[in-house]
């Protein structure tokens, strides 16, 4: 155990800490701008982790996060700190560092993390400048009235240009470039000063000590040994370990099994008071029973009104997940059931595809979420999966005024449709000004509406667009990166919906629709989509004994056609004495291969053909950092 009180904050135990001595802050940064490394230095400086136990990116728990160097689940660490310099030198405080998710898919979780803080460290790589995702989170923090402390990281790098990026950051948040702190998470340079500045600049939390308890859940994590661990920020009142708590959204009451703070390992405590950050465990097994954004109160003396800002996670992107080996379907179901315990945003229901067999239609917050779930299913559960091209949710109004939510293109209604709405996003692209034209061309090609354009500095531009979400989930990020030589960054947030001229394109094989390839696309792009998929399938599907037309159709109207010519010859010319054994084995293998074929009507299609046809369209358009070594 590290010394819990290196800063001499003797009386400042959880539940007994004056709000005036507390600072709650988070770090806003792009995924590879060094947030986790900086956090590691803070843990060392405040001596809550000793050097022996220190491992890189201590706070990132899941393997996938560690490998990619990204943080998905936030956590809160309580760090005692004695101010080293300035007017308050010698003052002891408690710092709660709340780690925020860095990715757009988790905007809601980011917003709850921010709501738990009074201040935010804006961390920017001094060699790269601010990125679009950081900008979006910065705006979110500013909207929440957080104190922003601008910090340039990696000043030890030869390529660092602190002056240039200090100007850029100062312009964004309206401060003096000289106010930008300079640190190196790697060497530890400037980190102690940063902690002092957090104490000086960030407001202490304010709450009603004697009011009924209101605590906001900003994270909820399933642990196989403990059940769900819920992270809370107490706004009003004081939770004691003996209390029975109540979830205000559902009214559910739970015994408290444990209450404590993270420092950075869990430390039990008897109580948590106003302004403090900690965790609680009730024994529930599913994070859906302890949802991010919900308000926790005490059953015996409940608060009258919940804190604002709660909303149910809403899947934005859907994809069908199918086991390549059909016999793994039960294993896939079990694995999804397990992942769901720790992921309130994951939704799924059984689905049957003529092309792919039995699987699940899964709803995700976004593409990264999809990729993470898929990768965990494959890695942690050993499943081989094929996923259909991701699609968004469409709201279809029929002429008889019936409203239908479409989460699977093959279920798009066939009757008379009055109007169709598709979700839109407000996208921010930061790009060197050399590539502005290329970015605009891309966005316009994806039906984007330009909202505005600003120069962050003389050579960096911020472009703001409204784009259909459905246009972003299909290789948009890859295209953006390739058109800007990797320099552009992208962020987007949901911005409602728009009515659009959308149609469902079906792909028919010998007259039978292949459900896995049905897609909802803009009318003007239907032809291009149909031609592309039909041509791809023609190359992938082997010739049959009869001619097989591949058609793309909107309703009963054929918009594209390819033909797989009939196979006319399938016979080995020679079969003499020495060939018989080989020939017998060959035919038996072929017959076995035939059993693995999927039948679409009369057409035999090797599953590999579907996989190959789908694989290129399922590349997830995010490029998380890969670490070497």
């Amino acid at each position, binding site marked *: 155990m590290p010394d819990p009180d290196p800063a001499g904050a003797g009386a400042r135990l959880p539940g007994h800490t004056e709000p005036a001595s507390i600072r709650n802050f988070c770090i806003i940064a792009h995924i590879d701008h060094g947030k986790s490394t900086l956090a590691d230095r803070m843990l060392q400086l405040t001596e809550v982790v000793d050097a022996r136990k220190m491992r890189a990116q201590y706070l990132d728990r899941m393997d996938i996060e560690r490998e990619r160097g990204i943080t998905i689940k936030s956590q809160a660490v309580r760090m005692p700190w004695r101010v080293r310099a300035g007017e308050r030198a010698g003052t002891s405080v408690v710092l709660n560092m709340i780690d925020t998710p860095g990715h757009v898919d988790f905007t809601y979780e980011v917003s709850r993390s921010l709501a738990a803080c009074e201040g935010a460290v804006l961390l920017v790589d001094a060699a790269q400048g601010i990125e679009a995702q950081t900008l979006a989170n910065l705006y979110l923090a500013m909207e929440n009235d957080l104190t922003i402390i601008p910090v340039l990281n990696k000043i030890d790098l030869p390529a660092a240009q602190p002056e240039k990026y200090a100007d850029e950051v100062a312009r964004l948040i309206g401060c003096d470039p000289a106010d930008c702190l300079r640190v190196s998470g790697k060497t530890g340079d400037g980190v102690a000063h940063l902690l002092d500045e957090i104490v000086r600049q960030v407001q202490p939390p304010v709450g009603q000590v004697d009011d009924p308890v209101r605590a906001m859940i900003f994270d909820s994590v399933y642990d196989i040994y403990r059940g769900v661990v819920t992270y809370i920020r107490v706004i009003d009142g004081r939770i004691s370990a003996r209390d029975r708590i109540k979830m205000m959204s559902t009214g559910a009451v739970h015994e408290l099994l444990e209450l404590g703070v993270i420092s950075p390992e869990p430390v039990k405590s008897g109580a948590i008071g106003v302004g403090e950050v900690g965790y609680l465990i009730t024994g529930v097994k599913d994070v859906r029973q302890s949802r991010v954004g919900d308000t926790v109160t005490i059953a015996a003396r409940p608060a009258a009104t919940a804190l604002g800002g709660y909303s149910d996670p809403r899947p934005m992107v859907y994809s069908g997940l199918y086991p390549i080996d059909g016999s793994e379907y039960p294993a896939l179901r079990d694995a999804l059931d397990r992942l769901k315990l720790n992921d309130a945003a994951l939704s799924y229901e059984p689905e049957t595809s003529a092309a792919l067999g039995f699987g699940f239609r899964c709803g995700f917050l976004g593409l990264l979420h999809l990729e993470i779930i898929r990768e965990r299913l494959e890695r942690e559960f050993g499943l081989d999966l094929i996923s259909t091209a991701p699609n968004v949710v469409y709201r279809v109004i029929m002429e008889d005024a019936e409203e239908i939510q479409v989460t699977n293109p093959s279920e798009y209604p066939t009757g008379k449709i009055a109007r169709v709405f598709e979700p839109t996003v407000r996208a921010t692209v930061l790009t060197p000004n050399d590539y502005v034209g290329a970015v605009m061309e891309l966005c316009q090609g994806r039906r984007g509406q330009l909202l505005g354009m600003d120069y962050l500095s003389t050579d960096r531009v911020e472009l703001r667009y409204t784009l259909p979400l459905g246009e972003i989930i299909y290789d948009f990020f890859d295209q953006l990166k390739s058109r800007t030589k990797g320099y552009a960054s992208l962020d987007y947030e949901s911005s409602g919906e728009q009515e659009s001229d959308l149609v469902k394109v079906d792909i028919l094989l010998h007259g039978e629709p292949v459900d896995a390839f049905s897609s909802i696309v803009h009318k003007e792009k239907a032809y291009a989509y149909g031609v592309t998929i039909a041509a791809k399938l023609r190359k992938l599907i082997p010739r049959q*004994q009869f001619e097989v037309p591949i058609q793309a159709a909107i309703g009963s109207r054929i918009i594209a056609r390819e033909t797989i*010519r009939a*196979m*006319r*010859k*399938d*016979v*080995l*010319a*020679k*079969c*003499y*004495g*020495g060939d*018989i*054994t080989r*020939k*017998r084995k060959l*035919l*038996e293998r*072929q*017959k076995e291969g*035939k059993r693995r074929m999927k039948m679409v009507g009369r057409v035999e299609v090797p599953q590999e053909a579907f996989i190959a046809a789908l694989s290129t369209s399922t590349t997830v358009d995010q490029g998380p950092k890969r670490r070497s070594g």
Partner: protein
Amino acid sequence: MHMVLPDVALAAVGARGFGVYVHVPFCARRCGYCDFNTYTPAESGLRGGYIDALLGEAQRAALVLGGAGPPLVETVFFGGGTPTLLPAADLGRVLERLDRLWGLASDAEVTTEANPESVSPATLRALRAAGFTRLSVGMQSVAPHVLALLDRRHEPGQALAAVEAARAAGFDHVNLDLIYGTPGETPEDFAGSLAAAVNAGVDHVSAYALIIEEGTPLAARMARGEVPYPDDDVAADRYLAAEEALSAAGFSWYEVSNWARGVSGRCRHNLGYWRGADWWGFGAGAHSHLGGVRWWNVARPGDYRDRLARGLPVVAGSETLTEADRQVETVLLGVRLAEGLPAGALRGPAAAEAEAAVAEGLLDAGAWRVGRAVLTVRGRLLADAVVRRLLP
């Protein structure tokens, strides 16, 4: 030291017909498309000792078969390689030995393969005198550019001259081998080859689609893009052309790639393979089949000779067919024949598949009505697909 066959293999040897295959694994030169077990002088210096080795293996076979009662040999087939690279007298010694050990049937069919450039009228007379009754000549094509691509050494006219000489030497049965679908071959080229074969007066034609075998020089040239790959649709067109031209000239197909004038023109030895007969294959790399046991000899002639000389087995591998294997073989071999399969050989769902294949025009409706599964012309081109459906 010799192999011991299980009783099941030895039971009723001869009742299923008994043939002998003799493999002569030597060629003057290897053709670019060929993946057969054959060696050029540069690859194997062995020649002379080979006949003695063959005689030695025959002696062993006689010991193995001894107790089962030696069957009469009804057919003999010398294949290669190029058997006619060896002196006719040497080939004759092998026939003499077979006759001495088991007896050659008085009407035995005795065939040898020959390359057009490796036989002279004198050789042919010697072969006929040694007891050969049938000659199979590798003509392949009359188009010089096709022969060139195949690496064949002979002039287009040499094959026809060999046929002429064979008939003059007293061969009543002569086959011409054709290869179709060679890249660069035109429909006219192939029509010319068919016409030449018909006009040569032979009673048997084999026509094979060019197969690109892995590891051959031709496959390498195609992989490098120097020569285009053969096209299956072209091959199908050529096959139909062969069927049409040969039918018109009085030939009938009796196996997917084989046509004959009259029943007497058919190759009885090869029919044995397709009907599940017994045969012993002598020589390096030769395959044998006796009563449900298949085995094959070591491939290299040097190994083969040395093992015989040292009393070691020459068998490189073997398999004993299960009832299910035999069923599969009955279907896959029988379907290739014009006589087809008896409907009774099709079990369970295969019978229903046969009905469907009749409906799709792959099996002949008239033959099916009288209880036989016989391929239509279109079915012959898709024979492997039909077999897969008819397998148990």
